[in-house]
């Protein structure tokens, strides 16, 4: 219908590896090849937006016109049982704290 599947925006395997690292997403070699080709054809399809004149048009991220919705900066307290359940959800936890590997 609206799609053309000719590919001109070819993404290289190196591009895919770079994006995957930014996204902290491990990929197999097969996935890298599959995504390079699939993402290339999708990006190519996106090129058509260049046909739309958007000079002087403001971007929209909020469709009902709400702006700067604020609430009072007040701490909401939870019962001990809920707090324990939240910490228990962490794959590793110790002394009511979430445990993780060192950053450096």
């Amino acid at each position, binding site marked *: 219908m*609206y799609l053309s599947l000719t590919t001109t925006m070819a993404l290289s395997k190196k591009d895919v590896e770079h994006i995957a690292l930014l996204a902290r997403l491990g990929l197999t070699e097969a996935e890298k090849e599959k995504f390079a080709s699939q993402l290339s054809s999708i990006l190519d399809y996106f090129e058509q937006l260049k046909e739309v004149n958007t000079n002087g048009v403001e971007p929209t991220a909020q469709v009902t016109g709400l702006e700067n919705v604020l609430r009072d900066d007040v701490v909401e307290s939870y019962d001990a049982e809920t707090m324990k359940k939240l910490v228990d959800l962490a794959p590793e936890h110790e002394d009511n704290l979430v445990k993780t590997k060192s950053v450096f």
Partner: protein
Amino acid sequence: MNLNELTIKEANEGLKKKDFSSLELTKACLAQIKKTDDKIKSFITVTSDLALQQAKASDKVGDFSDPLTGIPLAVKDCFCTKDVKTTGGSKILQNYIPPYSATTIEKLEAKKSVMLGKVNLDEFTMGSSTENSGFFPTHNPWDLSRVPGGSSGGSASAVCANQTLFALGTDTGGSIREPASFCGITGLKVTYGRVSRYGVMSYASSFDTIGPLTKTVEDAAMVLNALAGADAKDSTTPPVAVPDYTANLSKDIKGMKIGVPKEYFVAGMDPQVEKTIKQAIAKFEDLGAKVSEVSLPLTKYAIATYYILVKSEASANLARYDGVRYGYSAKAETLLDNYLQSRAQGFGPEVKRSIMMGTYTLSAGYYDAYYLKAAKVRTLIKQDFEKVLSQVDCLMTPVAPTVAFKLGEKVDDPLTMYLADIFTISMNIAGVPALSIPCGFVKPKDGKTEMPVGLQIIGKQFAEGTILQIGHNFQKASDWHKRQPIIEE
């Protein structure tokens, strides 16, 4: 007639008259799930004990003045339900038990509705067929070799197969309307912000909406009455008054103006579907409405605009699944490897593709060309809708270009799959409400069973009452919504 086949309205009348109890109604639904769900696969989790307990509690109070009291429902598995496993259809959350419930779930608990369980979906709601579920695909009750649509496929199949009286779903680009159309039921996508998203897993935060899948438009109005309204926990819910959505349903639609956007009748559409939609629109003329052709000239850019913005937002939302705070962890040696491996092992192909796509379009050097450009085109598409909807009371289009397709037919081709949403995504770009109702059946070339076709009725922002009134008038004058599937043994 079995109790599980009732509408909400009929069941409420029976409960009020003490013809039957909520416990009997709930048991009828659980029996239907037991009888049919090994074939249909709507449910990820059936909460039988909880349902029986909630049903007994509503019978004990015995006050059925609220139409949802004692009424069983199924919940899409991306709504957090306190102490009940909530997977989002993803292996990364396959053992996740949230310690709190979504606002919508709390609202229905306050009405003493009865939760039957959690139903299947495309992983994190990304898909149009429910084949992207991390666990198993769901089957269309009309023809088990076909998809139920998606991503709220389990919600739609459960209502269609009378496993429940109604279901909750989410709609980011058609995820309530397309499965409602494919299963021959009623589905409502609300105005962005009409219903709180608190406690529902995010896909694309500026597009996601929550709404009901029901057997009739009247039932959808009743459920919306319970769900709508501002929520302090969701800052995107505006303080717009909530009317009684059932109040004007029966008013006639004489003189109402219906716009038919010409861009929604294009080459490539199934001619039988097109004919069915046109016949349905003609029916509204019989009911006294005035039909005219209108134009939404930017329609052809909707898919690109939608996928750039939605996948960008999705890639940011999915960053929270880090293998540290909750969900699956690969327990690798270093922090980086733990991120890489937890996400590699926990996410399925469409979610990975979304993360890759969104990360690319948001990355340095490409942000202006993709995300910002699409956000500007979004403004223009929204203006297109505002302009046309200032001239007519509603728009009518098909929900999908075809009836439900076969399982496996499109699963390996993301671009073709994205086309299943071609007629539904623009409403999420513009934030306007849209209703899907069954308006006829056609026999596909590759099948023996007649499959349902859905008509889409689109309104102005916060004009849910108007599109529900128009849809109800159609259902008063037709029987398509009463047709029942014969589920293969």
